[in-house]
């Protein structure tokens, strides 16, 4: 290393020197100002103290003689004394006031700033101190302030000059001792920056030895030279690292090229199409599979935009896909694309939004789904066919049950008439036959109803109407209904209800009765001769109620239990000669679950079975008092002469209803064979009650009702619907249309009579 010696040839008054001199002057001035302020304050206090001392001196030394002069009112003496006092330093005015007026004075008020003091003049007279006047003294503060101001100016000027000279000297010393060497070091470092290999050593132009050496500058020179050596070493290391880095970059580039090749191979050989699209819709890249799919060459496709190949003409749908991709980053959808020859191909496209640096583009994989689409189409056709067939089946079942119920209506109705006709008593044998007819007819009716229910369930048309239902009366009624059947087989029925069972469950009244009757009739049917049935009702903790029916039948093996609630499953009872469709339990399960309940069974083969179901408790109590309605319904009217018109196209039904209604005395029965005939009779004869079939040829029952209500003559006549349409929807529609009541076929004799009685009685009451 060559030594680099640089002397300070220039004497520069640079920023550092300027800063130093200004700082020194500023600091010195601040200190001077502070000390001067303290001095001046001290002087001020001293001068003011002097004035106060003079005032105190007057009070203590001159006051007694002044008081005596005032006492004798000696003007000459007073004037002399005041004049003397006014010559004291800073005292410029004195006055003696008597009774608020100045009697004697000396001096004049000249100053702007003053201190004043009032001293009472007290004299002992007749044994007490008497105020004979006030001495008013005014001292001038102007002189004090003038003295202070002069002192301030003098001090400031003197210190300013002193500070300036010290600052100049300090700058000279600084430049001599440090400034010029710092410049040398700066030059050396700049050279080092330009030429790092320069072998010069830094050396300053100052004596080699000194009393205070080595000092900070020597430290700096040593550090710079040490840094110089370190830089030399680091430079060599960086060169080595660079060479290593270049080697690694070359290897990595080679790896990447191989990786790219692999990726291209995958894209080239895959069966799915692949293309890249810019945000402007231009196709940027494609793979061979996509070219094959659309029949273009790669070069042709790269000239096209997406709309050139996309066959979906629904602009909103396309925009929605693009929006989803931009928002979510990806989308997958089916569409069709146009081949070069104009034909369309069904494809599934999976698109991802890819960001390469600042540039964004779509990467899309395309799969030909022509075969899959054809399969889907075939499947849809098959499904539609099946649904049509099922609908036809349900329609057939519904129509069948309707057609079956109409003749059954006649069979059961006339059977009941024969049984109850007191005018023409039957022989015992004939009565047995009639009972057989009724029994078989009722069984047939139950089966028809069950089939009808099942068809409704299958077509999703099952409706339950949940309401609070009092449980005890319901169970008692069902048990009472089953008791005769049980008695025939010598089966003892035990009903165990809590004495005050007031529970109300949330259920559909009709459906609950159906379930109860089903379980009870099963318990009778599958019991042994002389067996027992035990019906219980138990509240559960989770606001539910369990109703269980225990029988002493043959029981069911555990394996068979799961199949019990399947439709048309009769297990082995089909071979025991017991009647049944195998629908009852399946129907009960569906109904209980529709009422938000559960149903189940426990059975011990050889000992018997317990069928149970649980329903949720209702919050409110049942609102309709059944008893009152019942009393009103069963009391026969004491008829005067009433006219009842029945409009019905079926002669058998006409005769049946005529028989039933005319069993009451004093009833005139009128017949209308269709809607038009019925309307004419109604207008002409104005009956007290009209019974109206809904399914009339031509004009149906609803139309007849509408015309009756429009005519003022017939508007007020109560009309009761009689129909084989027993669905609750039909009943609701009828009640909404304005029928007074809605009776379903097959007609129950008692029900028809009670309705007739009730309406006629109400009419009598009104008249």
């Amino acid at each position: 290393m060559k030594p680099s010696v640089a002397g300070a040839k220039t004497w520069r008054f640079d920023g550092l020197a300027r800063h130093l001199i200004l700082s020194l002057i500023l600091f010195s001035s601040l200190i001077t100002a502070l000390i001067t302020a303290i001095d001046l304050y001290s002087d001020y206090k001293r001068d003011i103290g002097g004035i106060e001392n003079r005032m105190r001196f007057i009070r203590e030394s001159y006051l007694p003689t002044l008081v005596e002069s005032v006492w004798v009112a000696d003007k000459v003496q007073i004037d002399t004394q005041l004049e003397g006092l006014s010559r004291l330093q800073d005292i410029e005015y004195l006055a003696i006031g008597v009774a608020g007026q100045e009697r004697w004075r000396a001096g004049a008020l000249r100053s702007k700033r003053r201190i004043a003091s009032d001293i009472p003049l007290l004299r002992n007279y007749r044994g007490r101190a008497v105020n004979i006047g006030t001495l008013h003294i005014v001292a001038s503060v102007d002189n004090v302030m003038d003295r202070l101001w002069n002192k301030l100016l003098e001090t400031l000027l003197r210190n300013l000059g002193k500070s300036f000279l010290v600052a100049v000297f300090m700058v000279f010393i600084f430049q001599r001792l440090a400034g010029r060497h710092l410049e040398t070091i700066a030059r050396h470092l700049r050279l080092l920056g330009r030429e790092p290999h320069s072998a010069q050593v830094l050396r300053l132009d100052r004596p080699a030895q000194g009393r205070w050496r080595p000092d900070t500058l020597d430290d700096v020179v040593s550090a710079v030279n040490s840094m110089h050596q370190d830089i030399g070493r680091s430079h060599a290391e960086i060169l080595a690292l660079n060479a290593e880095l270049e080697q690694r970059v070359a290897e990595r580039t080679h790896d990447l090229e191989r990786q790219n090749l692999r990726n291209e191979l995958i894209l080239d050989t895959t069966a799915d199409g692949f293309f890249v699209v810019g945000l402007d819709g231009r196709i940027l890249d494609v793979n061979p599979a996509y070219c094959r799919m659309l029949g273009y060459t790669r070069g042709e496709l790269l000239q096209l935009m997406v709309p050139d190949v996309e066959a979906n003409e629904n602009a909103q749908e396309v925009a929605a896909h693009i929006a989803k991709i931009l928002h979510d980053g990806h989308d997958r959808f089916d569409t069709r694309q146009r081949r070069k020859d104009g034909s369309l191909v069904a494809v599934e496209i999976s698109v991802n939004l890819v960001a390469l640096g600042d540039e964004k583009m779509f990467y899309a994989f395309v799969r030909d789904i022509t075969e899959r689409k054809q399969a889907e189409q075939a499947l849809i056709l098959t499904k539609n066919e099946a649904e049509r067939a099922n609908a036809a089946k349900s329609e057939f079942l519904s129509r069948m049950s309707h057609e079956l119920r109409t003749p059954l209506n006649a069979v059961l109705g006339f059977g009941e008439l024969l049984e109850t006709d007191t005018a023409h008593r039957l022989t015992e044998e004939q009565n047995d036959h009639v009972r057989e007819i009724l029994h078989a007819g009722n069984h047939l009716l139950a089966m028809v109803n069950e089939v009808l229910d099942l068809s409704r369930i299958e077509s999703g048309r099952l409706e339950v109407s949940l309401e609070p239902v009092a449980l005890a009366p319901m169970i008692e009624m069902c048990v009472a209904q089953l008791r005769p059947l049980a008695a025939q087989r010598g089966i003892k029925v035990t009903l165990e209800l809590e004495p005050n069972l007031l529970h109300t469950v949330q259920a559909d009244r009709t459906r609950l009765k159906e379930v109860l009757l089903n379980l009870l009739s099963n318990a009778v049917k599958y019991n042994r001769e002389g067996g027992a049935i035990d019906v219980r009702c138990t509240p559960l903790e989770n606001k539910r109620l369990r109703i269980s029916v225990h029988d002493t039948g043959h029981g069911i093996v555990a394996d068979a239990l799961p199949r019990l609630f399947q439709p048309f499953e009769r297990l082995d009872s089909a071979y025991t000669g017991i009647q049944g469709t195998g629908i009852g339990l399946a129907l009960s399960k569906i109904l209980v679950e529709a009422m938000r309940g559960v149903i189940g069974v426990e059975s011990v083969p050889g000992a018997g079975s317990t069928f149970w179901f649980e329903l949720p408790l209702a919050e409110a109590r049942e609102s309709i008092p059944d008893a009152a309605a019942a009393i009103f319904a069963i009391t026969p009217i004491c008829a005067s002469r009433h006219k009842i018109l029945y409009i019905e196209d079926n002669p058998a039904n006409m005769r049946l209803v005529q028989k039933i209604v005319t069993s009451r005395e004093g009833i005139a029965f009128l017949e209308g064979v269709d809607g038009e005939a019925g309307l004419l009779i109604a207008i002409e004869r104005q009956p007290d009650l009209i019974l109206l079939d809904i399914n009339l040829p031509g004009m149906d029952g609803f139309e007849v009702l509408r015309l009756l209500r429009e005519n003022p003559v017939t508007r007020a006549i109560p009309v009761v619907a009689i129909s084989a349409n027993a669905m609750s929807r039909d009943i609701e529609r009828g009640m909404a249309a304005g029928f007074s009541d809605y009776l379903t076929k097959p007609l129950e004799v008692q029900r028809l009579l009670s309705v007739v009685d009730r309406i006629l009685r109400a009419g009598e009451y009104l008249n």
Partner: protein
Amino acid sequence: MRHFFLMCVMTALAAFASQASTADAARKRLQLTTVAQPPLGSTQQGPGFLEQVAREAFRRIGREIDVATLPGERSLINTESGLDDGDLMRAPGFEKAYPDLVQVPEKMGDMDFVAYAKRKDIKGPITWDTLSNYVVGYAVGWKIYDRKVKARDVAKARTLDELFPLLDLQRADLILIDRWQGQYAARMHGAAVRLIEPPLASSPMFMYLNKKHAAIVPALSRALAAMKADGTYQRIYNSTLKPFELRQEIP
């Protein structure tokens, strides 16, 4: 009936007590002042002419007095300010300069303003105009001299005691004073001084009270007149002033 009687007695007693206390307040001793020296003023041996006259006059209207002797104007200042209740003797017209004073119309007596000399060459008569030829001395507080004297020079004495020594020390050619006090002081002084007749001026002298006592002035004035009528005034004069009537020059 007995109750009514008791109530009447108590009401009468209360009224009497109230009247008595008012009378007490009215009889509070009045504080009077004077600048006068003997024989007008009092000595330690006894009351002078003015005090005796005033005491008798106030006694006649049911009041008692204390009298203090004050220097020069102080007597007026105190009476004017209400610190004291009255000045026993002053020349007429003071109520103009001191508006809170009220004059008692019946005069207390007459005063001759006279000059004394020691130098034998000074002869009478002396008038206000001829004073300009002399150095004149008088005591502070004599308003008439402050107003009238136009002398070659004036020497003021703080008290009457210091007045006659002015002649001895030849600080003044003439000293001015009133006849009664002059005679008394000259006798006390003992030196050879001459009273120069006739007087420079004569004036009736009156008692002045502070305005707050204006209500008793008429009664007091009548009492003074009565004293002159019944000889009481003359008797006091004879015992106090008459010995100083001597009009010859004191050797």
